[in-house]
Every structure is written in C-alpha cells, then in structure tokens.
C-alpha cells in the first residue's frame, strides 16, 4: 500500500517558479494556459497498512506548512 501526499502552495502565495515555467511553456507553443503552480509529491510506502490519522498529523506538521501550503492525501491500495 502507498500513500501520495501532494503539497501545493496556497493560491495567495507567490509562486515565481510556477510563473517562470508557465512562460517557458508558452514559448514552447502551449499558449492557451492559465496560471501554473508547482508543488511536490511525497510517496510513502506502507507495507503493513496505513494509519491515516497519524499520516494526516505528519502531513500537517512536517510535510506541509499550512501558512503557505495545502496538502491532500491519496491512498493507493495494492500499489
């Protein structure tokens, strides 16, 4: 079993990296795009099952900073 924790900058936070990549994408011909934001994904293996409550605590306290980011958790069974 795996968990994917996706961490994204909050919409109100400046994401200059996303803006720079958006410009590059437009240069490559993908002109019909809106805002691009860049976050990160943490993949965690759980060979013996996942304690979701504990995972949420860790995602909140360590993996993300809720002042500037939001996170979502996806559990992938059988992975």
């Amino acid at each position: 079993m795996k968990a994917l924790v996706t961490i994204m900058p909050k919409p109100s936070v400046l994401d200059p990296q996303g803006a720079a990549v958006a410009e590059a994408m437009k240069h490559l011909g993908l002109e019909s795009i809106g805002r691009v934001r860049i976050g990160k994904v943490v993949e965690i293996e759980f060979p013996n099952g996942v304690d979701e409550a504990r995972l949420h605590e860790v995602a909140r306290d360590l993996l993300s900073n809720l002042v500037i980011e939001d996170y979502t958790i996806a559990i992938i069974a059988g992975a």
Partner: protein
Amino acid sequence: MPMKFAVIRFPGSNCDQDCVHSLNAIPGVSADYVWHKDSSVNGFDAVVLPGGFSYGDYLRCGAIARFSPVMEAVKNFASEGGIVIGICNGFQILCESGLLPGALVRNRGLHFICEHTRVRVERPNSRLTCAAATGQILNIPIAHGEGCFFADDATLAELRLNQQILLRYCDAQGRVTPESNPNGSRENIAGIRNAAGNVFGLMPHPERACDPVLGSTDGLALFESLLAK
C-alpha cells in the same frame, strides 16, 4: 557577569562561527556553541539560531531543524521570556516552529541574493532595536534564496497593530519602495518579533556587519540592543 549567548549548531548551519566570533568581540558578551542534539540551554541568557542550510534545506527551509531535540528547550526558554533571535535560516526555523508568525518562501526573482542591503528601523522600542533610532538606516548584508516574507492579510494586520514589524528593506533615503525590496517580502518586511517581544527573526545578517573590515558595523546596533537593560 557577561550576557551569555547560546549559538545553536544544526547540521548545515554555516554562520554559527561568525555569530560566536562577532558576539564574543562585543564587551559584556560571551557566546558559545550548543549542539542541536543537546536538550538544554540552561545557563544562557539568550539563544541565537544562526544562518545556514540546516538539513540541506530539504522539504522546506527549517522544516526538519524545528524537530531537533534542542528546539524543545528553545521553545520552553522562549515561553519563559528568554531572548531568542533567528538570523536567516534561524528566522526560517522560528517560523516553521510556530515561534514567529508567517513563513519565508522563494525569492520573487528566484535567484539566491548575496549583497549589502539597507533596512530601516521601524520600532526602536524593542529588545532588538532599542540601541537604534526610529528611521535609522542600517547597512546589513543578506544571503538567501528563500527570504520572501509571507503572511496572510489578517496576520499582517496583527503584526502592524502589535508593532511587531521591526525592520523593512529601504533605499538610501530610507524610503520603503518596491525597488528596494530585494526578495518580494510583503510590505518589505526584513525582521519581526513575536507578540510577547522576546523572540526575533530577521533575514539580514548582523553578525556579518560587526567589523569595519567587512564594510559595515551597523549590525552592532542590533546586538547591543539586546545588551541594553
């Protein structure tokens, strides 16, 4: 009795020696290192979290260092009114640990910036700025890639209301302008304090501005403020 400063060393700290050197050169100060795995800061009058790249800046700057064993002691020290000052990476660690509001994110221009900057003293009535005058312009270098101060509107309003904004980036005339903002920090904020007034964070490096040979001695005003009774 000299005022005793603990300079915390995390794996990846790289301004710890500068801090100890600059502090020890000030009359009435003694500074010593404390390893991040120590569980106590007993016997010290103030704690400095120095600059650097603790834990390689992995995940987010300061995100892992905030869980170092010594941070529990630093939190207790702060809650009892002890003076804690975070410089650069130390500022990031204090924000991550919740001892200071806000967060520090990637510079607006994406580049790592290492240069002398001017900051204006906004409040002289704090333990970090009481040896300076309101509006005094300090020439202190910055060196960071993630120094853009972010806080939401409500937090910013609270910072203003409680007079917690101590330093703002400014131009040579002391004007706080978009052009003098090196990293995109909200309201040009370069340094703040907590509501209680004993925890400080700033991106500029005062320890690098304490010796004429380095081009500025303006950092002394901040350290000497901490000594003032």
